[in-house]
């Protein structure tokens, strides 16, 4: 009896594993590193790294140089302009190393003026503003950047939307305990499941396509915006404490509110994959409000601002999805930021001279 009863659930498990393997194979052939294949890919990379002498490595991140940039060896020279880019996936996804906007900044800056220039791209997929601030506090004194540019918002917006939804749920279940607590910590298993290709597909195509039809929020609550404001002030303080000039940038979404209906269905799905609290309009409204907040803080705190939104917002041909640049987008972003940074550096030098 036990054999026949075991056969059925084992068959279900086998089916699920087969589906997952099929999806992962598809991802691997497209150049990604999915879950089952990760150990092999990581082992290959580790082998390559071990067999590559440290002196021949030209690009981080490495244990000694935690940046997605060409490795800076030796001390920083006196007239060198060192730019620290604090971002998330925007500064990594969508182009090969060397073609991303932080890598292109120095070339753009050098076109009309020629200071020695280096970039420290302190960006990583999935990090938020708090993580960036922690890195500045830990590392900036050692690497001595002149300017720290903040370019990231989407993870923070996603976190704010999750936080807002969690608050709503908690209010509904205030006096009851419908939230159960695992006796055993299952978070490693939960994380493993969330890294599977099947989960990603389900999140995007199933829950995402349903979320599009739901009456989602058209704006985040103001208390979430206030929390973001507080984080920006922390960033400014951390940067100034590190002896660098903080530079804020506005966020440029792929579409504007007036042409939101032009957003392709797949792009909407990827937006819903990451958060299911804000509608497309809500996402764009929230960005607008956050950009207004950035403008206000820039004036209040006398912080330099590069208005990328003005130059790039709504140019869908520069984007892979609702936030990430493609190669053309990286080039365009690099030009806009380089122009802004040149003006900031020139103004700083004028102030120093006077």
């Amino acid at each position, binding site marked *: 009896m036990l054999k026949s*009863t075991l056969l059925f659930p084992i068959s279900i498990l086998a089916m699920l594993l087969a589906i997952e393997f099929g999806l992962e194979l598809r991802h691997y052939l497209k150049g990604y590193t999915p879950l089952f294949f990760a150990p092999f890919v990581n082992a290959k990379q580790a082998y390559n790294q071990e067999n590559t002498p440290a002196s021949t490595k030209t690009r981080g991140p490495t244990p000694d140089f935690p940046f997605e940039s060409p490795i800076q060896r030796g001390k920083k020279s006196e007239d060198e302009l060192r730019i620290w880019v604090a971002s998330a996936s925007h500064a990594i996804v969508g182009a090969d190393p060397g073609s991303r906007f932080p890598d292109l900044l120095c070339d753009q800056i050098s076109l009309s003026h020629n200071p020695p220039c280096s970039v420290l791209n302190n960006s990583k997929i999935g990090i938020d503003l708090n993580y960036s601030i922690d890195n500045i506090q830990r590392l900036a004194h050692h690497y001595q950047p002149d300017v720290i540019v903040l370019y990231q918002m989407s993870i923070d917006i996603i976190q704010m939307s999750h936080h807002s939804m969690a608050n709503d749920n908690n209010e509904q279940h205030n006096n009851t305990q419908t939230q159960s607590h695992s006796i055993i910590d299952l978070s490693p298993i939960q994380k493993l499941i969330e890294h599977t290709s099947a989960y990603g597909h389900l999140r995007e195509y199933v829950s995402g396509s349903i979320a599009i*039809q739901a009456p989602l929020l058209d704006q985040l609550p103001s208390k979430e915006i206030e929390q973001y404001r507080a984080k920006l002030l922390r960033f400014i303080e951390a940067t100034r404490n590190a002896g660098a000039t903080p530079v804020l940038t506005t966020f440029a979404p792929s579409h504007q509110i007036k042409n939101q209906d032009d957003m392709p269905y797949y792009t909407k799905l990827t937006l819903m994959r990451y958060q299911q609290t804000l509608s497309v309009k809500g996402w764009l409204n929230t960005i607008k409000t956050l950009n207004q907040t950035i403008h206000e803080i820039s004036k209040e705190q006398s912080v330099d601002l590069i208005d990328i939104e003005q130059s790039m917002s709504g140019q869908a041909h520069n984007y892979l999805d609702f936030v990430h640049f493609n190669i053309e987008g990286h080039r365009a972003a690099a030009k806009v930021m380089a122009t802004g940074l040149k003006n900031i550096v020139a103004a700083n030098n004028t102030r120093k001279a006077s």
Partner: protein
Amino acid sequence: MVFNSLEFALFLPIVYLIYSSIYRCESLRDIFLLIASYIFYMSWYWQYAGLIALSTLVDYAIGKKMHNSECPRRRKLLIIISLTFNLGLLAVFKYFNFFADLSRQSLSWFGIDIPPIYHQLLLPVGISFYTFQTLSYTLDIYRRELKPEKNLTKFAVFVAFFPQLVAGPIVRAKDFLPQINSVPPPTYNNLNKGLTLVFIGLFKKIVIADLLAFLAIDSIFNNPNEYSSWDLLMGLYAYAFQIYCDFSGYSDIAIGVALMLGFHLPINFNRPYIAQSPSDFWRRWHISLSTWLRDYLYISLGGNRGKKWHTSRNLILTMLLGGLWHGAATNFILWGAYHGLLLMIFKPFSTTSTSYQTRYLRIALMFHLSLFGWLLFRVTDMQNFIDFISGVSKLTSGTQLGELFYLILAGTILWHFLPAEKTREQISNTLQSLPTPIKAGTYAGLLLAFIGLSLMEPSFIYFQF
């Protein structure tokens, strides 16, 4: 842990595998079921496991003493102790703050101001269910309809049996204790039927109830002023099916899980919206609660044995308390009173009709009468109710609701109302009789769909009771 969670997905196969291996050894089996049930309960708030253990010990002891006593006064005293203890638990954890606040407000109307007296105790999950379950045990012993269970472990399993512990169905000792004593085997047939029921329950809960809530209901009831009259009505129709599918889905899962282990729980829902009268409705909705209220409250109050006004009083009181059972809030009491009123008004008429035309008219009427009750049940406060009613009365048209919402609602309504018993049975039988690889593929696909849809994460409605 809720049924549609990772924890339960890991918990159930482990429990099933171990149980299948040890069920022949009765004492080991009972201890294992008890431990598994307590682990299940402690996943909510482990401290309250002591409460359910205390309730078990008290009623076990009272049951034994009552059975062994021939003195009517002593027996009466013991049953009063059991009632006081169990209802006292409910009073303290569930109703204290509500009645304290009500009293304070009432006194303030007379100019007497007293400081607020509240406690911060969390409401133990399932307390309304397991207290009623243990009460049915002591009351049946008092009425000499049942002999007490001698084995404490078996009695503890009856109280804490995990599939039905936190949200029913409320089982009677006379139905369930014999099953615990007879060691039902977990056969392949039961596993098959049980799993099918579990998947049907998950489908009702995740695909219908949760989606309807996510796509429209929550937003409509939270912001009724932003919707047209049509959308408000659609939201109300949808809520009727959300609460039905949520609760009956949970019951299906509970019954399915119990069946996998070889135990038979009573059905709790029987297509309630095809009821032709209020009494017919209560024979189909939350059957385990309505029969409990009938047997232990309505009949104890005198039932329909006295004058007409006695019967009316008993009906209203029973339903009022039935409403209060659902929660310490005015809207639940009003909902209960409303149904009591309906029962009273419709009592003189026959409960069902054989005539084709009148049957469907009665079904339509009863459905819409129950809809008004659900409105009382769902609103958060009086203002919410007023906003909803005034929104509907404006008779504005236009809809903000998407096609998926209408598809799910229309499909659910058709499935519920169409006389398709044979089709329903056929689908269930077909699922069970598929060859193992195809069945596994079907269930794997359904599981993935459920996971995808669960990523919106609302909880079971009846857990808050």
